[in-house]
C-alpha cells in the first residue's frame, strides 16, 4: 500500500509551514536519503528526505503551498511493484486549511490532527513518520553536523538552521559563540530568512539562494592544483551569505561624482591648527553623507516586501577592515553630531572593532553605509550594498588631479565617490539628487555648519 509522506515539524512549536519546492516529480524513483522536498517556516528551511524506496506516486501538496499543517500528508510513495491504482484508495486530504476553522471537506470533524494514526487496518496504510528533516546548504544531506548541545538548543531557540552556519570550535564544531555571532550579525531568522529565500526566487525553482560549490568540485574545476585550506569562521560565513544575497537579490546601480576637496583640506588643516582634535577626511565624509540623507530622506530607506521603510534616524555604518574580515560599526545620529564627536567616536569604534570589543548594538543596524578605500590609493570603486540598507557610499582617494576651471587647466584635490543604490528603494534621479547634495557639502564644508 502507498506510504504517506507527512508534513514534518521542524521544531516542537511548529504547527504549519510552507512547501517551498519539490525535488522529485510524480513518477520519479526515490530511494532512502533522496531529498524529496524543501519545507520552510518563517524561521528556517529544511530538506526532507525519503526513508523508503519506491516511486513518488502522487504529490498531494503542490510546490509553493503556504500554511501546510504539520502531519498532513504531502505525498504518497508507491512501494516496489505496487500498482499505481493503489493511489486511488488513499483518501488522504491535502489539509491545506490555513486555519483550523475550516476542516477539509470529507474529513470527519473533530479528528485529531495526527492523521490516520489508528486506521492501520483500513485502506490507508499506517503512515510512516515523515523523515527527519536534515541538513541545508552548508552540509550535504545526511552529513552529521558537529554542534555542541548548547549551540544546537540556542540555534533552535533563535530559529537558525545550524547546517547553514560555520563552526569555530575544534574541528569546525559549531559552538555557542557561533550562534551568538550569527544572531548578532543579523542572522536572526525573522530578518534574514525571507531575504535568504525571497519568494521571487521560487519561480525559477532554484534549489538554493546560495548556489555554492563543495570543496571537491572547486578543486576539480581548478584542475587539482596544490592548495592550503583556510577554515571559514562565522564572520566569513556571514559575509559570504549576506553579500551574495545582496548581489543576487538587490538590483544595484551606481553613480559616481568627483568632489573637489581643496576647501575641505583647508578646513581640516585649520581645525588641526586651532583645536586639539584630529579630524580625518573620512569624518567629513560621514558628516556630509549624514546631512545629505537628512536633505534627501528618500535615500535613508530600506526595502521590505510590505513597504519601503524610511528611517527617522540617520545612523551611518562605516566599514572597518579587520585581519580576517570586516565589520561595520555605527555612528548613530551622525547628522546631529559635530565633526569632533564623529572623529572621536570613529576612533574609539574602529579601535574596539579591531580588538573584537564592540558591543552588539554598536555594529548591528544602521541606515546607510560608507566604505572608504582612499587609504589604499583606490581611485574609485563600487561597493556591495549591506542589506537592509538602501545605499552604500564608496569613497576613493583624495588626490591632485588636472581639472578644468573657468576654461583653463588647473590642479585640484579631487575625491571620487560612488553611490550604490538599491533600485527598489532609490531611483536614479533620487540617487543623483543625493550625490548632488553630498558633493555640495563636501566642496563647501562651511555649509555643514548650517
Amino acid at each position, binding site marked *: 500500500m502507498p506510504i504517506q509522506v507527512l508534513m514534518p515539524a521542524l521544531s516542537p512549536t511548529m504547527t504549519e509551514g510552507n512547501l517551498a519546492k519539490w525535488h522529485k516529480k510524480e513518477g520519479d524513483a526515490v530511494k532512502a536519503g533522496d531529498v524529496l522536498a524543501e519545507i520552510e517556516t518563517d524561521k528556517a528551511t529544511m530538506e526532507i528526505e525519503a526513508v523508503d524506496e519506491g516511486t513518488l506516486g502522487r504529490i498531494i501538496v503542490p510546490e509553493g503551498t503556504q500554511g501546510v499543517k504539520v502531519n498532513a500528508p504531502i505525498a504518497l510513495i508507491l512501494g516496489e511493484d505496487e500498482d499505481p491504482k493503489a493511489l486511488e484508495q488513499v483518501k488522504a486530504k491535502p489539509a491545506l486549511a490555513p486555519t483550523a476553522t475550516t476542516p477539509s471537506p470529507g474529513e470527519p470533524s473533530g479528528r485529531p490532527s495526527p492523521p490516520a494514526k489508528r486506521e492501520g487496518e483500513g485502506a490507508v496504510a499506517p503512515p510512516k513518520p515523515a523523515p527527519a528533516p536534515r541538513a541545508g546548504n552548508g552540509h550535504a544531506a545526511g552529513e552529521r553536523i558537529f554542534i*555542541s*548541545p548548547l549551540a544546537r538548543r540556542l540555534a533552535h531557540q533563535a530559529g537558525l538552521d545550524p547546517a547553514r552556519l560555520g563552526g569555530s*570550535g575544534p574541528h569546525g564544531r559549531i559552538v555557542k559563540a557561533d550562534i551568538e555571532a550569527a544572531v548578532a550579525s543579523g542572522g536572526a531568522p525573522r530578518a534574514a530568512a525571507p531575504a535568504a529565500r525571497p519568494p521571487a526566487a521560487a519561480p525559477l525553482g532554484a534549489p538554493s539562494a546560495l548556489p555554492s560549490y563543495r570543496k571537491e568540485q572547486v578543486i576539480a574545476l581548478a584542475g587539482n592544483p596544490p592548495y592550503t585550506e583556510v577554515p571559514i569562521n562565522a564572520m566569513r560565513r556571514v559575509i559570504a551569505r549576506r553579500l551574495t544575497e545582496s548581489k543576487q537579490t538587490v538590483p544595484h546601480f551606481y553613480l559616481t561624482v568627483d568632489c573637489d576637496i581643496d576647501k575641505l583640506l583647508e578646513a581640516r588643516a585649520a581645525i588641526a591648527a586651532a583645536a586639539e582634535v584630529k579630524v580625518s577626511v573620512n569624518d567629513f565624509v560621514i558628516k556630509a553623507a549624514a546631512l545629505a540623507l537628512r536633505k534627501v530622506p528618500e535615500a535613508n530607506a530600506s526595502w521590505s516586501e510590505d513597504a519601503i521603510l524610511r528611517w527617522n534616524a540617520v545612523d551611518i555604518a562605516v566599514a572597518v577592515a579587520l585581519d580576517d574580515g570586516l565589520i561595520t560599526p555605527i555612528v548613530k545620529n551622525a547628522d546631529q553630531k559635530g565633526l569632533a564627536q564623529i572623529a572621536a567616536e570613529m576612533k574609539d569604534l574602529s579601535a574596539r572593532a579591531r580588538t573584537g570589543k564592540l558591543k552588539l548594538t554598536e555594529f548591528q543596524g544602521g541606515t546607510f553605509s560608507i566604505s572608504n578605500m582612499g587609504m589604499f590609493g583606490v581611485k574609485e570603486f563600487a561597493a556591495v550594498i549591506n542589506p537592509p540598507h538602501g545605499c552604500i557610499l564608496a569613497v576613493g582617494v583624495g588626490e591632485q588631479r588636472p581639472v578644468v576651471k573657468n576654461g583653463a587647466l588647473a590642479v585640484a584635490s579631487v575625491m571620487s565617490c560612488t553611490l550604490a543604490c538599491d533600485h527598489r528603494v532609490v531611483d536614479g534621479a533620487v540617487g543623483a539628487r543625493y550625490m548632488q547634495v553630498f558633493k555640495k557639502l563636501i566642496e563647501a564644508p562651511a555649509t555643514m555648519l548650517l
Partner: protein
Amino acid sequence: MPETSFDLIVVGGGPGGYVAAIRAAQLGMKTAVVEREQLGGICLNWGCIPTKALLRTSEINHLLHHLDQYGFTAKDVSFDMKKIVERSRKVAKQLSDGVKFLMRKNKIEVFDGHGKLAGKGKLAVTKDGKAAAELAAKHIILATGARARSLPGLEPDGKLIWTYKEAMVPDRLPKSLLVVGSGAIGIEFASFYRNLGSEVTVVEVLDRVLPIEDEEISAFARKSFEKQGMKIHTSTQVKELKKSANSVTATLAAGDKTSTIAAERVVLAVGIVGNVEGLGLEGTKVRVEKTHIVADEWLATDEPGIYAIGDVVGPPWLAHKAMHEGVICVERIAGLNTAHPLDVTNVPGCTYCMPQVASVGLTEKQAKAQGHEVRIGRFPYIANGKAIALGETEGLVKTVFDAKTGALLGAHMIGAEVTELIQGYAIARTLESTEQELIETIFPHPTLSEMMHEAVLDAYGRAVHI
C-alpha cells in the same frame, strides 16, 4: 658553550612557564627557560604541591583521631613536625627534579639566573649580580608569577608573622595561630594547623569565608570549620600586629568595635602582587596595571614579541590557568588555528581544606546579576551511599542552570574529594552540555560522583535519592 639564540624564551620556570616551553618544544621551536630559583616555581616548590603533602598529613591526623568510627583502637598517636615538613619538602623536590627531567627530555635549554629584557628580542641573564648570558629570541614569554601581598602594618617578619613560605616549614606546631585572609591559601593553612591541633582564628575583611565561592558554599564551609573548633571573624580588619618575644597581639576592628587577640604565630594571606620588577619593562610598550602585566586574549602584551602568562597577568591565580595560558600563547605564536582564547569562567577553582571546596563557572548570585533566570539543584552528601560508607557525610553539591537554555552556568561543591570531582562539570561546560546530556550520562554506582548527577536532576525537579 650553550646556544644563545632561540625561537622562544620563557622567563620563569613555574607551571605556566615550563608547560609553555614544553608545548613550544613539541611544536618544533628551539626553546629556553630562564629561572632564578627552582624549576617548578612557587606551585611545585612553595605552593600547591608541598601544601597538599601537608594537608594529607593533617587529614591522616584527623582520621587517626576518629579511628573508633572505623573499628580501630590505637594508643599514643603522635607526630613529629620535623618529619612532616621533611616529607613535604621531599615531595616538592621530587617534582622539581621531574621538571628538570622534562626540560632535558624536550631539549629545552635552562638558564639559571634572573632574566631581564635588554632591547628588542634580547634578554640578559644575571646570576648573583653577574652577567651569565645574553640571549636572543623572536618571542619572549614572561611567566614570572606573583608573590604574597603585604599591607601597611601587616608586614611579615618570617619569624612570628609568616607568609605561605614560612607557614609551610614550621619547626613546631604553634599552640595558636591567627590567619589573616580567608581565600584559598589562608583557609588551607587554617585547616592544616587546626587539624593538627592548633587553636586557629581566621580574620576576613569581607562578609564571608572563601569569598569568591558561591554564598551557600561559603556559609556551609564556615559552619564546618567552626564545628572543627576554628574561630572565624568576618567583616573584620586586622588594624595592627604587635610583636612580643614569642607571640603577636592583633588588634581587630569590626565596624567601630575593636578587640585584641593574641596568637603565637600569624599567617598573612591577604592577596597577591605580580612579579613585574626588574624585568626591563621600562623601555618597552608593556603596560603594568595594579602590579600585573596587561595582555590581550592571546596573552600578547603591547610590545610586539613580548607575551605574559599566568599569575603575572592577573587572577585567577591558579597553576592550571597559567599552564593553559602557556599553551594558548605558544600555539598562537606557532599559528595553530585550533588555539582558542581562555574562557575564565571555565577555570575550576579548588581549595584543599577539610571539607574540600571546588567550583567552576558562575555562582548563583553572579548568574542572577548577569540577568540569567536560573534553576538551582542541590544534593547533600548525607544522602549519598558512597559518602556514608566512607564516613564523609558532610558536604553539598550545587548546580546553577540557565532556565531558558539549559546551559550549565556553574557548579559548586563542598565535601570529600570534590577537587577530584569538579572536572566532570568542567568538561560539561567546555563541551557546552545542557542539562539533557548530563541527565543522560550514566554515573557509576556507588560513587560520590552520583551526587553530581543528582544535583543536575534536582535542578529539574527530578532528584531520585532525596
